Structure formats: structure tokens, C-alpha cells
């Protein structure tokens, strides 16, 4: 009896095992396996979207790369009573810093899939070029952000510390490809950024300024040159970008509100490249949006605002002349007994808690070219001041003596840096401008942060340093 029983059991085990492997097959529905994802051009079109989506997050241009660069520097501080956001940034608390490592590298890996794919076999040459150009640009932008957050610019090293970030140019498809790598030098990283942008420039034919255009690639490259003190190349590339964009200058010389209102149109007329947000599906909402962080709910800007934590410093406000149209951007409000001026650059104009983020504006190109020219000295100094004064002519009433006139190179540079604060405040430039030129950060009551201070560089994620024996932490962390 037992014998028969055992035979039946064993027999059914075998049958069951064979039949059951099929019964255990399941397929996910909202995901597809990696093998089939990129065999069709629609997959590649969707993958490039992920690259833009990476930029939108609150840890990236959606919030921290913008407000972090203001609060870590001397442009912005926090209100007395706040939601604990940016409090530690405003005092340069040890360890508080940008944290784009994982997100940027995830985006780089996605762009690597596109850059290394044979797009010509699945679509037209024009589309293949445009997609490849966008992927190259986005990869370059992410490497540029990684390089300026985690390392010094070439020529600006403190104690000769040249380590920048890890370079990966191939997609990771299997876990064995996720090998440990050391950081490359800042020269090497900047070199691939330049190479990618140079390759992208002729490939790009699109004109939508919410997507990457050839003008955007030229503009970013001019900024990349500027960060490396490659003045002549920066100047040339800025000129090239100015000639290749659909952006137009806003003139606030007659209507002082024009500067403020330009931030309420999408795209911003001066945007060479603008990060767009859909108000329903892409908004960062009450908790994380730029709108919520910079304007108070129930404040004077109707229908928008939230925490209202981040406000301009007295130091920033003190450099505005009363005639400057840009001062019109600020609005006075009383938050929990504290009277302060708030910025209206992110006034919820796309929708509730939603604003587009201009990443490169025409005025920045003029400022890049002005600086690049002035730094070259000689006759270029005059040309540089002309760029600066052209911008100022669009910001001050023509009746006002807005011209900067000097023959002193340092005075001209100082004027350009002041102008950058006046023009680009709350757009994520200030901290990096100080850093790329080796300047200390003046912080009022809490004292200055020296350029040689540990806190000028972001700490690498400690878990990554612990994991990867080849990865060195930044000095002092």
C-alpha cells in the first residue's frame, strides 16, 4: 500500500514540476522587459523624456539646484518661522548641500542607452540626429552639474584637489557592468562635456525651447567654457548661441513691470532652454514647489504660495537701485510678524504650485560674453562693457544714467558680478559664480565661508564612498 502511495506521489511530483513551470509564468503590465524596450523608436522617444523628467525633480532643477545655490550663498535666507526647509542651507550647516549624485547618474545611464543605440536603423536620419543630440546635451548637462557640485573647476583647485566625478559612457545592462570606478579629474570630465556638446550642436534641428535646441547646446557650452576660464572660447560660443536662438530680449526700460511679467509667460521670452512643467501631472505641489517655498499661502500673490520660507537677503536687496525695473519683482508681505520682501519669479503662473524654470536665458548669454570679453582685457574690455550696458539698457528707464563706465578691469568684473546678482537672483547661479571664481561667501551674522572651506564642495553620498573602495570622499568630510 505504502509503496503504491509513494509511487503516486513521486509520479505526480514529476508531472507537477514539469507542468507547473508554465503555470508560474507571469508578466508585468506597467513595465516591459529590457530586451524589448528599445527595439522600437517609440521606446527611444519615451526614454529621452525620462532625461527631462530627471531634471524636474525637487532634488534637481525643480527646487534644490535653484534655491540651494541662493541660500548656500549670500542671495537668500529663510524667514523666522519656517518649515525647516533651507534653514540648514542658509547657515551652511556642515553636510547640508546639493545631492544630485544618484539622480544625475540615473539620467546619464538612460542617455547612455540612447547614445550607444543604433538609431538610424529604426528611424529617419533627422530624428536620429535630434534624439542623439538631445541625449548628448542632457548627458553633458548632468556631468556639468555633477562636476560643479562635487569638484572644483579646472584651475581653481584648493590644495591641488583635482578629483571630479566618475565617467560612464556605456549603459549598464547587467549587474557586472556596474563595476567600481574611481573619480576622474576635473580636466577629463570637462573634456567630455565639451566633446558631447560640440557633437550635439550640428545634430540638433528642433526649435522647441522646452526641448534641447542647437542654441541651447551652444549656450551651455559657452557657460562650460566660462567655468573653465576659457575666455575666448566662451565669448565665441556665446556669440554663436545668440545667433542661433529664437529667444528675444525683454525690454523693461519703458514698462518697469516687464521684467517681472516676463517670468509669468511660458516660455520666458529670453529662455534659450526652459524646463517646462505640466500643472496637473508634473507639479511638485505644496510641499516641494519653488512657488510654495518662495511665496506665502494667503499672501499678496493671489491663488498661490505655500510655505514662503525662502526670501532675499538684505545683502541682495541693498544692491538694487530704486530705478532698477527688477526690484519690481519683489513684493512685501508679513509672515508671522516678520515683514519681508518675497520674490515673484515663481508665482504659480503655469498652474497651482507650478512654474516653468528657465535654465538658460538670453541675459545670461550677454553676461557670459561681457565677462569673457572683459577678462580678455584690452579692446575686449570695451566690448564687454557694451554687452553689460546693453542688458542694463533693457532694465533701467532710458532717462536714468544706467551705464557702467570704467577702464579698470577689476571694476568691470565687479560690475558684471553685481549685475549677475541683479539679473539672475533666485535662478540658481550665485553659489556657483562665487565658486568658479574662487570667492569667499559672505554670510552676514553667521560669518563668511572661505573658498578653501570644506563646505564649498558637496559631500559625496557617504554610502557610495563606503561601498566603492575606489571612490574618495571630498576633503574634510
Amino acid at each position, binding site marked *: 500500500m505504502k509503496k503504491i502511495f509513494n509511487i503516486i506521489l513521486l509520479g505526480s511530483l514529476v508531472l507537477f514540476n514539469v507542468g507547473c513551470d508554465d503555470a508560474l509564468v507571469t508578466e508585468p503590465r506597467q513595465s516591459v522587459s529590457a530586451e524589448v524596450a528599445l527595439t522600437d523608436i517609440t521606446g527611444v522617444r519615451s526614454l529621452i523624456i525620462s532625461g527631462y523628467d530627471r531634471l524636474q525633480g525637487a532634488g534637481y532643477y525643480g527646487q534644490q539646484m535653484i534655491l540651494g545655490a541662493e541660500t548656500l550663498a549670500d542671495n537668500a535666507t529663510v524667514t523666522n518661522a519656517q518649515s525647516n526647509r533651507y534653514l540648514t542651507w542658509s547657515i551652511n550647516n556642515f553636510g547640508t548641500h546639493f545631492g544630485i549624485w544618484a539622480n544625475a547618474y540615473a539620467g546619464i545611464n538612460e542617455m*547612455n542607452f540612447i547614445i550607444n543605440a543604433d538609431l538610424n536603423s529604426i528611424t529617419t536620419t533627422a530624428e536620429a540626429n535630434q534624439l542623439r543630440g538631445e541625449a548628448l546635451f542632457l548627458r553633458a548637462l548632468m556631468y556639468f552639474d555633477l562636476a560643479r557640485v562635487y569638484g572644483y573647476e579646472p584651475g581653481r583647485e584648493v590644495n591641488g584637489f583635482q578629483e571630479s566625478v566618475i565617467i560612464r559612457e556605456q549603459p549598464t545592462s547587467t549587474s557586472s557592468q556596474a*563595476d567600481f570606478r574611481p573619480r576622474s579629474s576635473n580636466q577629463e570630465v570637462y573634456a567630455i562635456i565639451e566633446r558631447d556638446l560640440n557633437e550635439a550642436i550640428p545634430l540638433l534641428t528642433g526649435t522647441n525651447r522646452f526641448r534641447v535646441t542647437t542654441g541651447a547646446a551652444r549656450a551651455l557650452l559657452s557657460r562650460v567654457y566660462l567655468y573653465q576660464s576659457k575666455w575666448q572660447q566662451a565669448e565665441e560660443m556665446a556669440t554663436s548661441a545668440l545667433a542661433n536662438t529664437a529667444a528675444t530680449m525683454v525690454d523693461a526700460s519703458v514698462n518697469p513691470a516687464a521684467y517681472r511679467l516676463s517670468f509669468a509667460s511660458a516660455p520666458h521670452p529670453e529662455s534659450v532652454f526652459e524646463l517646462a512643467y505640466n500643472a496637473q501631472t508634473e507639479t511638485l505641489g505644496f510641499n516641494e514647489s519653488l512657488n510654495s517655498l518662495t511665496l506665502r499661502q494667503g499672501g499678496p500673490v493671489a491663488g498661490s504660495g505655500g510655505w514662503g520660507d525662502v526670501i532675499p537677503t*538684505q545683502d541682495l536687496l541693498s544692491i538694487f537701485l530704486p530705478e532698477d525695473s527688477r526690484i519690481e519683482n519683489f513684493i512685501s508681505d508679513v509672515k*508671522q510678524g516678520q515683514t519681508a520682501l518675497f520674490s515673484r519669479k515663481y508665482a504659480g503662473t503655469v498652474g497651482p504650485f507650478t512654474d516653468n524654470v528657465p535654465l538658460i536665458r538670453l541675459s545670461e548669454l550677454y553676461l557670459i560674453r561681457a565677462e569673457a570679453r572683459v577678462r580678455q582685457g584690452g579692446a575686449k574690455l570695451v566690448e564687454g562693457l557694451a554687452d553689460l550696458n546693453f542688458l542694463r539698457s533693457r532694465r533701467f528707464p532710458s532717462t536714468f544714467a544706467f551705464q557702467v563706465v570704467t577702464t579698470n578691469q577689476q571694476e568691470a568684473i565687479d560690475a558684471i558680478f553685481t549685475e549677475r546678482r541683479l539679473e539672475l537672483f533666485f535662478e540658481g547661479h550665485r553659489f556657483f559664480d562665487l565658486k568658479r571664481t574662487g570667492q569667499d561667501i559672505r554670510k552676514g551674522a553667521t560669518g563668511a565661508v572661505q573658498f578653501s572651506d570644506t563646505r564649498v564642495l558637496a559631500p559625496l553620498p557617504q554610502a557610495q564612498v563606503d561601498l566603492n573602495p575606489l571612490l574618495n570622499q571630498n576633503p574634510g568630510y
Partner: protein
Amino acid sequence: MRKVLLLGLALLFVGASAFAQSRVVTGTVISADDRLPVPGASVTVKGSTIGVATDLDGRYSLSVPEGNNVLVFSFIGLRSQEQAIGNRSVINVTLESDITSLNEVVITGYGTTVKRELTGAIASVKGEAFENMPVQSFDRALQGRAAGVQVTATSGAPGGGINVRVRGVGSINAGNEPLYIIDGVQVASGGLGSQASNNLLNSINPNDIQSIEVLKDAATAAIYGAQAANGVVIITTKKGKAGKTQFNLTVQEGTVNRIRKIPVMSAEQLATIKIEAFENRFNRIGPSATNGTSLEDARQRAINVYGDPATVQNTDWQDAVYRTGRSRTVDFSANGGDDKTKFFLSTSYNLNEGQIIKSDFERGTVRLNLDHRANERLSFDVNMSLATTTQNGAIADGAFINSPFFAALFTLPNQPIFREDGEYNAPLPGTFGYNLVQSVEFETRRLVRNQTVSSMAANYKISDKLRWRSFIGIDYAFARDDNYRDARVPQFAPTGGSAFVAGRTLLNWNTNHTISYTDVFNDVHRLSVLGGTEFRVEENEEFSASGQGFPNGLFRSLQNAATPTAVNGFYTTWRLGSFFMNAKYDYNDKFLASATARYDGSSRFGANNRWGLFYSAAGAYRISSEDFLKDVTWLEDLKIRASYGVTGNSNIGNFASRALFGSGGDYVNLPGIRPSQLGNDDLTWERAETWNFGLDFALFGNRVYGSAEVYDRKNKDLLLNAALPNDSGFGSITTNIGKVQNQGIELELNTVNIDRGNFKWSTAFNISFQRNEILELDGRENIGNTLRVGFPVSIYWQAEYAGVNPADGRAMYRDTLNNITYNPQGRDLKYVGSPLPRGFGGLTNTFSYKGLSLEVFFQGQWGNENLNNTAFFTDAAGGAGWNQTVSQLGRWRQPGDITSIPKAYEGVEPGVTGSRANTFSTRQIEDASYIRLKQVTLGYNLPASLVSRMNLRAVRFFVQGINLLTFTAYTGFDPEILATDIGRYPQSKQLTGGLTVSF
């Protein structure tokens, strides 16, 4: 089934003895427990084979041959009784319950056994232990009643989530929840729906439950193979009893209140400390735009926001959002049947209003359990349950500024609820801008769930020794979320009001087919073998839609929305196929052995490792059966046990082994895709290797009985997300690495302390000690700060708080060299505690005197620390723009003050980042040990004489209290939580009174 068999056998005896009768004895057999007739009890003439079984009304009639003078009455679960006949012709017998009976039936995997034959560790809790307890789900009722089983509420919301941990935490990333099986149906646990903390197990009316068994060691659980590593909880609902149909009606009504109110400052106190904070800042850094021009100006700036202490009005925001909730239960059941068909039928209604405004739980259930014997060989059993639950939720647990139980602590007390014109005062100034009374009132958060857990089985008796059983069970739930955010709340105004609706479907079914064989050789060798196959499928599907822009707050449904904003869908599934086998051998009731094997295949695992083998072996030795102990009369039973086995844990993502591209966000209305994970074809089960040693004992005529267990469980091949360098584009890959050990000792002790006259006092006590340690990670000593080799799987790794510098009021911490620092760095952090308890237990004392009974149940745990994350914000030493705890008034004020609370300082003092509440340290780590008077029940049964005059069987009045007293040093709402305490819906105190009528 046993009853029916006995009945049949007994009837045969009657026929055989018909010719020798000389006198007839009649009578009724009733049970002492419930005073109900016992059908199917056997009545035999001592020393003969003559006997009869009682009928459905417990009556018997037996012809007793001359010369025989003693009758033996017996029934399973009741203590046998002998009666001398004498001259009597009517003998009525009351059989006492054999409470400590070693013959108590215990449910095991795919079968039952009796307690004396157990070779493994099973905790068994009978339904009576929690009958009529006002809890929404049975898992909560397990708390403190089963050794080795730690039960913690993840939320105190009525009907909310529960965490059950059987013998500690063995997994880091895979689930730690046990497998739940309700009447053979392997059900999904956890929640379904987003609008309130909810629990799929609350569809079962706890009063329908006959018993809950927790399979704790490998010997008992290994038959569930890959799902068994976290233990198995088997729930068995009540069955019908043959006999006259019996009805039970219970009505219960009560109140729900908060356990604790956190002492926060009054408006006057807050204004006082804020003025000091503003003045201190002025004194530190002098006049400025934010500080004001003078000390008086700084003071005035504080008054502008927080009011003047001399005149300010106070609002108690905690009182504003708490209330006395009502609870109500109506429970009706009927059971009965005949020898062919038996049924248990029940219906219930439960309402439990939370102690927070607008949060409640409402449930209706219907159940029908049916057994039918078609013929001598074929029988069916069917269990059907239907439940509908409606929960109105408070916001999910967490640090939300619109969460009533979180934000009420922080809302500024100088702000009134209503303005003078009678409108809500909203938005409030500051971070906590929601007027909670308004936002809770105007927001709809509703979760409706309809669920059935039903099954059907056919049993076929191939021969007396060989039986076949086929089973199919289904667990189906549909949950609908409704959220409406009214534009009248200023924070919701920008959207013009918004609505969110989601529908979630859970379909989960399993079927198994078993064949079992039992035999006895030479009267001493008993063998039983079981083999079978099983298949389980679970599917989850969701859709959701949202819209915004509503005409006004009266239009709240999605079709009124001006703009549809999002549509979403989600689907996931997994499957499990299995083959299993179990053999038991028993030699003369002295030596017991068992072996189990299960071969499982899961769709979750990699193609190379889809199938796994799990097994166990166990033995037991009944020392008390040895001859040399025969004379030790006080020793009823003494048995030692040992088991070893390997079980699996497969609670990982359903597609964790696949390389996938998934959704990659949107950009300008275009949908993106991105690689979401790397594949791992080698991914396989976590293996739990468990040793268990046990001791069962019964002493002094079963007045003292219990068991002790010692176990050691090593969980290997942990499904750990092995870190990948982020620069590869991926953060981790799920692989099998890492090892965790759990060890423990458990003791269960039951005693009858006094049983004299009508007074009885009995005690049930259980206690568990456990320790947990990570033995191995992915080769590194630590992953992040909180996973560290040599420490428990859950720890706090923080700076040590060293109090306040008496000279200047700054907060001090210890650095690595034990020196004072004001700005602790990463290297200064260290192990400061673990939320895993070192031990826990429960103590029940039951007193009864005639119809009166009193049950007092304490439950507690110790050796665990909690991060009181709420205190991180409330204990801000006057420095933050929100209300704070009264304890902060003990702040440092002048040089020489000795206190642990820093100086009040508005904002952050230059150079002192640690001074305010932005540094986590031991300051927020608290001992969360507690002992809680979990339940007190006082009951009174009307005397039987009175009741029978009313034509009823029994009438019982009772009052009970839940969570009446708590002894703890913990300062947060509730120590009975898991780990980090931030914005948890606290548990409630309940008082109810009720009446049960049986007829």
C-alpha cells in the same frame, strides 16, 4: 466528523445488545461549560461493549444487563465520568470540560492533531479568550496571548493596520508578516486603500473565530514551505454542532477616548518663551532688519505673532480635534443541524468611532459555515463570509501639517478656531497653517471595502485508512477610495477643490488536493502520512482618477470636476505552485516523530532558481509514560521535544528578479520610460534554519500546565538589495546575501490557583525573551547607519546628548573621544538603542464566583527604545514658530542654570547648529517599555433557574475596559508603536457594556 462517527458506531452497539436487556436507564448529558446538551456523547456499561450515543438533545436510553452497575459517560474534550446506577432509572450527567486536556484538538497545516501528539511549537488561542472584545480585527486580539508573537498596532485608527512578528524579525527587505490562513484560504494581509489605515484581516468578525493557531517552529510551519519563515497564523471559524438550533445575541455599546493628552504650552506660556527667544537673539547679534531696532522692538515682534502673555486668549487644539467616540456591536449567531448537515450562521454589525473627529470604522458581516455528509464516503464543507467595511479616515500616519493628531500639538494656541464673524479662522499664520477643525470637517477621506473569504472542500473516504480531500478557497476584495478636498479650505483653494477616486481589486485564490493515510500496527505503532499539491495565485489591480475645479463644496463627486487631472492604473500578480508531504509516527504514546517536506515554485524568483525544497524533522519523548514515573501522581504529563527545519521567505516584489523598463515620469505631457531595475536570474528564497527545543508539562491534576520553548533561527540568503554604485544608474540589485539570527526563550504557564466551592481563580501567563542580530551583510560591516553587523536589524545610530552648557545655554553632545561638541558630525554617532523589545508577555487572571466573573489582562514589553520624532519638533526649547511641550519651559535662562533644555533662541544661533531641534540625538531616544492593563471584563450570568423560567438558555451582562491603564516612562502619545514615532494615530481607551442572550 468525529462526533458523527461515534454516533454511527454507537448505534451499531445498540443493535447487538438488544436481546440481553433487563432494565432501562435514561437521562440527559449536558456540558458544564455552557449547560448545553451534548449530542453524540458515548454512554457505555463499564466492563462491557454495550453502549449507546446520546441523541441530538443529549438524551440517551440504554438497556443495562443484570449484574452490571456502572455507566461510563465520555465525550471528546470533556472529562469522562463514571456513575453507579444503584436503584436509579434516570441518570442525568454534567460533564466537566477537560480544560487542560492533552486531547485538545490543535489545528495544524492541512489537518488537525491533539495536543499530546505535538512535536513542534504551536501557540493556540481560543476564540473565548477574545470573545466580545471590541477590536476590529483578530490580529489585535492576539496581542499578549501567545508567547513569541509580538503584536503592534501600526496605527491606532479604528480598523487600522497591525504588525505581527512571530519570533522576531528575520528579514531586512523581504516581508516579516506571517502567512495568514483563514479556514484553509491563504489570504493577503496588509491594507488595500489609501484613505485610512486599514487592514484586510478586519473583514473577519472576531466573534466568528473558534481558534487561532500560530505555527512557530519549522516542524509545524515547514509544510507551508516558502511562505513559512515568518510563522503561520491559522484562523479557524466556528462550525455547526448537531442538535437543537441554538441562538446567541450580543449587544454592546460603549465609548472611545484618548489614552493620553500631550501637555503643550498654553498661549500665555508660549508667548512668554517666544519673547525670551526673540530677546535672546537680539542680545546675541544686535539690531537688524529681522531682529528689530531695540530690545523692546524685538519683544514687540514676538508679541505681534504670539500675543501678549498678559492678555492672550488660549485655544486647546488637542481638545478641538479629540472627542468621545461611540462604539456599538450587534452580533447574532445560530448553529445547529443534524447528523448529515450542520451549520453555523452569523451576522454582525460593528461601529467604532475614533477618538479623533470624523474618523470611524463601520462593518457588517454575514457568515455561513456548512458541513454536509452526502453518504458514508463523501462529505463537503463550505465556509462563506461576506463583509463590508466603511472607514472615514484621518490623514495617513506621518508628519503632515494637516494631520489632526500631529498638527494639533503644534498649532498656535493664541489662534481661535472661529473668527468673531463666526467663520473659520483660516489659514492660520505660520508653518501649521491648517485650521484643523475646518480642514478635517471639509475634507472627505473615505474607504469602502467589500470582501469575501470563502472556501469549499470535498472529502472522500477511499477506505478507513485512506482519505482524499480537495479544497478551493478565494479571498476577494474590492476597495474604493474617495478623497475630496474642499476649496473652502484656503490651502485647497488654488485647485478650486479636488477629488480623487481609486478602485482596487484583490483576487487571491488557492486550491489544494491532499491524500492522507493513517494506520495502527500492533496497537502501538501509529502512522499517518499526508501528501498533496497546492497552487496559489494573487492578482492586484488598481485604477484611479482625479479632477479639480468644483462649483462649490456641495458638488463632491468626480463628474463635477472642471478639469480631469490624472488617470492611473496598476497591476501586479504572483503565483506559487507546491508539492508537500508530511509523515507522523507515534510509538505507544511515548516516542513521537514527524517529518515534513515541501517543494515550492514561485513566479517571483529568477529562472535559474525558481524551485526550492523545504523540510523539517521533529521528535518528542514523553517521559511521563515511563514506568519509573508511573508512581509520581502529581505528574500528569511531561514531554520533551526537538525539531529542526528549513523554511522560506518569498515576500519580495513580484517582479524583483526581472530586468525591466518602467514608467519614467512625464515631460510636457509626454510619458517617459526608463530602466527601472536590473535582472537577477539567480534570485531565490530566503532560508530560515530553525532549531526548537520544547518542554510540555501538566502537573497536579492539570491544575498547572504549560510549555517552554527555546529556539534559534538563522535567516540566510537574505533578499537584500545589494548596493550598486549609483554611478551605474542603479542603486541596488536584489540578491541573496546576508544573515540574521533570532534566538529566544518562551514560557507559557496556566494555573488554577483556587478552585474551592463556587470560587475559582485561574491564571494564564506567557513571556518571551528574544534577541536579534545581523550576522552578515553584503561583505561590508554596515549599510548606511542603521544596518550593522553585530547589531539588531533595527537600530538607532545617533549622537549622544550631553545636556546644556550651564554657562551659556548651548546644547552639548559627545564626540568620538567623549569630549563635548556643539556640532556633532557623522563620526560622532553611535548605537543608542533598538526598537526591538528584549521581551514581552501577557498575564490574565480570571476570577469567578457563581455567576460572576472577572477577567484582568495585562500586556507589556520591555527593552525597546523609540525615536520620539514628534518630540524632535515639540521639544524645540522655544526656538521654533509653533507650539511646544510644557517641559520646554524648563529651558536654560541664566548662567549657572542646570537643565537639559537649551536656551530659547529664535532661529539658529550663529555657530550652534545643534542648539535647536535640528540635531537628532539621544535627546529624542526614549525607553518605550510599558505594561498596559489591556482588558478588564466583569460579567454576570443570571442563575440557570431564572433563565430557564424565561425560556432562555443563558443571559450574561458584562462591562469591559480596553487600555485602561498604562505604566511607562515614554513621553509620546503611546509606547505601543513600532520604532519611529511621528504623527501616529494613537490608540484609544474604550469602555463598553453589553448583554448576551442565548436561547
